[in-house]
């Protein structure tokens, strides 16, 4: 749950990028960091293993302006996507306020997307949160790979696999090229902040 500091007139909210391993969560944050470098006073924090995989999390704070006189600071985190790191994902989800689920559009990753979404649902349930009510945006990443002849899942298949019950906003994106990365973030921030507004009254 977001931390509201009435003395400093500041809100810290946590937005977690979730999804299967090698799906582009870290690349989303790297793009955001590059794009908003001038507004971000800190470095992008990453904890990686050999081979550039996220071991623990990436972290990037972003000031997104004021709501009702409170400065809103969004703390963006990624989780390690590999199945074996579930304990770490649970740690990172502590206090989560909003989720971006980064799905991999490659046809060969279809099952991994579904497994990861199920894992998200279970881990949220473990902290008394509901995947159907928490602010959630889906991002279908790697759409650019179609140009390279790599078989991708059609968006309607991704929608059917992942979003037919959730009915969450979704974006077709390419994190490496920066397509729809900012749009995804803006939507997730708007939903997350929207859910906090009542608390600020």
């Amino acid at each position: 749950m977001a931390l509201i500091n009435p003395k400093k007139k500041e809100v810290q909210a946590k937005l977690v990028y979730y999804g299967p391993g090698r799906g582009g969560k870290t690349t989303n944050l790297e793009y955001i960091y590059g794009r908003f470098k001038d507004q971000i006073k800190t470095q992008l924090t990453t904890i990686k293993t050999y081979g550039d995989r996220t071991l623990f999390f990436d972290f990037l704070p972003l000031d997104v302006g004021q709501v009702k006189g409170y400065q809103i600071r969004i703390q963006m985190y990624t989780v390690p996507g590999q199945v074996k790191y579930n304990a770490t994902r649970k740690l990172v989800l502590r206090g989560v306020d909003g989720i971006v689920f980064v799905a991999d559009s490659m046809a060969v990753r279809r099952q991994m997307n579904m497994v990861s979404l199920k894992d998200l649902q279970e881990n949220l349930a473990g902290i008394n949160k509901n995947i159907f009510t928490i602010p959630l945006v889906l991002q279908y990443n790697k759409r650019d790979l179609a140009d390279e002849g790599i078989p991708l899942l059609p968006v309607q298949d991704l929608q059917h696999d992942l979003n037919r019950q959730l009915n969450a906003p979704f974006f077709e994106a390419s994190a490496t090229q920066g397509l729809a990365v900012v749009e995804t973030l803006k939507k997730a921030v708007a939903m997350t902040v929207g859910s906090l507004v009542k608390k600020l009254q």
Partner: protein
Amino acid sequence: MKMDYSVELNETQFGLVESILEQELIQLGVKSVMLIDMAGNILVSLDDGQTHHDEYSLAALAAGNFGAVSAMAKIIGEQDFALLFHKGENDSIHFSRVTEDLLLIAIFGANVSLGFLRLKVAEAIRRVLDVV
């Protein structure tokens, strides 16, 4: 166990906690002190006026680190390790659990002895618990 890791304090409570940490730790010579929650949010951050760290990244990493070490404790049959200490050549970090949801972090140099710091941290925690 509270499951959503939320901490809610009012303006007066924030002020009181700040003044306790100022009196007990900053005046002792500690370079910076932070009270954070287990989600990595900062409740209070104070320094000696000369030290400026990337406090948000530090808080995110500290919460993750403490969580990871707590998980290790459970694997070996301990409920928790209530305090952690990392010693550096010049500066060191001391972590101490305040409540299930709150963690106190003190960064200090060679001018402060670890033993005295631990006494003052314990006193600060005792006083903070009266407030939160």
